């Protein structure tokens, strides 16, 4: 299972063995790491699973689709490396992925 590191806004780090096929959002929810609300359940409809992808992963992951890009414009404190974690798919190639969570989702 590829490792995923989630860093809460307060700096607390969680290293999680992530299941291939799940989204990063599901993995974070399953691990009960606070900071992701995921209200729409991964339908790319609410921007409450916003995260920042750390280098070098920001450029390694598949590009966001237009719907995700539009949602991201509406997230709080969007940055160039912003993603919706529901749209990040865990694969064997995401080993070592690191995401940071924003201060707030709403």
């Amino acid at each position, binding site marked *: 299972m590829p490792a995923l590191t989630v860093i809460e806004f307060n700096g607390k780090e969680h290293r999680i063995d992530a299941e291939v096929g799940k989204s990063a959002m599901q993995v974070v929810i399953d691990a009960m790491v606070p900071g992701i609300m995921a209200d729409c*359940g991964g339908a790319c409809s609410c921007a409450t699973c916003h995260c920042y992808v750390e280098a070098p992963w920001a450029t390694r992951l598949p590009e966001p689709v237009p719907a995700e890009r539009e949602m991201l414009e*509406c997230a709080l404190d969007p940055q160039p490396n912003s993603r919706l974690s529901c749209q990040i798919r865990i694969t064997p190639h995401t080993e070592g992925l690191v995401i940071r969570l924003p201060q707030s989702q709403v």
Partner: protein
Amino acid sequence: MSHHEVLLVVGAGHAGAELAIQAREHGWPGRIVLVGDEPALPYHRPPLSKGYLSGEATLDSVALKSRATYDKAGVELMLGRRVASIDRHAARVTFIDGQALHYATLALATGGRPRRLPAAAEGAEQADNFHYLRTLADVDRIRARLVHGSRLAIVGGGYIGLEVAAVATRMGLTVTVLEAADRVLARVTAPRVSSFYEQVHRQAGVDLRTGVQVDGFALDTARRLVTEVHCSDGERVRTDVVIAGIGLVPDTDLAAAAGLDVEDGILVDACSRTSDPAIFAAGDCTRYESPLYGRRIRLESVPNALEQARCAAATLCGKERRHDGVPWFWSDQYDLKMKMVGLSQGHDRLVLRGSIEERSFCAFYLQGSRVLAVDTVNRIPEFMLSKRLVAERLPVDPERLADDSVPLKNQIAA
């Protein structure tokens, strides 16, 4: 640990599951027991009429949380169990098998059940190819019948009916939608938006009929299958499968029988308290006092269920939290992402922004200069701004609102 510390959550939908987990996050010290009458782990409901119906989503991907998450949170799952009654005096619920469980605090998240179609009462409801759509089990039965080339009759042109029509059409079924009102989505949206959706569905090949009452069904000789839907205008629609989606009835039976205040929904305050201080309620089964609209409202909405559950969880752990979120909803049909915020009742003016023809527009429901509600189609950034417009009651200039050349953002700042 004594039963004085048991938090018992009845109903394992979005609200129940969130409430149980969040109560632990907020420091509930004792047992947390989550009771659901379905056998499956609590699951996301919106994909049922979309991705799960089409087969794109799997059982695993629709689960709200993994089993390990409940274990980690110390939430005991009692699935496939139905509560028969609540004895408030003894602080105890009894299951239909006679077993009883004491509680210190009880939370009701019983949701709702599909409104039943009167015309189906005489036999059609028991037919193998007649369905309502609310649960995973409903959709598993429906899926087996959604076969390329089959005929599907949908009774009801609300969100469920239209979402199913979109999925089934794409799967190659011949789809007829029968709506009793003179337009689809009549309860929730303006005529202009209704006609837009009617046009989209007709272009996709759906035989969409409005102003049509369903007054009966023909069954085969074995009375196992519906073969025709009979309409009040004399039309008979031959069909292989029927899905009725004509609304939701809040599940308030337990609460009402226990003597809680109920009025088309369990009445709760802004912190999700019922009329009994030991009992909370959240989600589709409740009616709450909305500070935003100044009246009691009942919402059939996932974001509402989650937010109410979070308020209940915080409050029952002694960290009182009021639910003052703005109602919002979404519906995905074909390539259209529709998102709605607010409630439009009482609006005196409708302002359109963008282009209906280009499938990218907003409809603002105004009362004077106040925005009561907004429907957006394929306009995500404006949806997010609209949430603020409605929630913060930001005044707008109706004339400028329609001007798509001035970004909505700038209009708010003005």
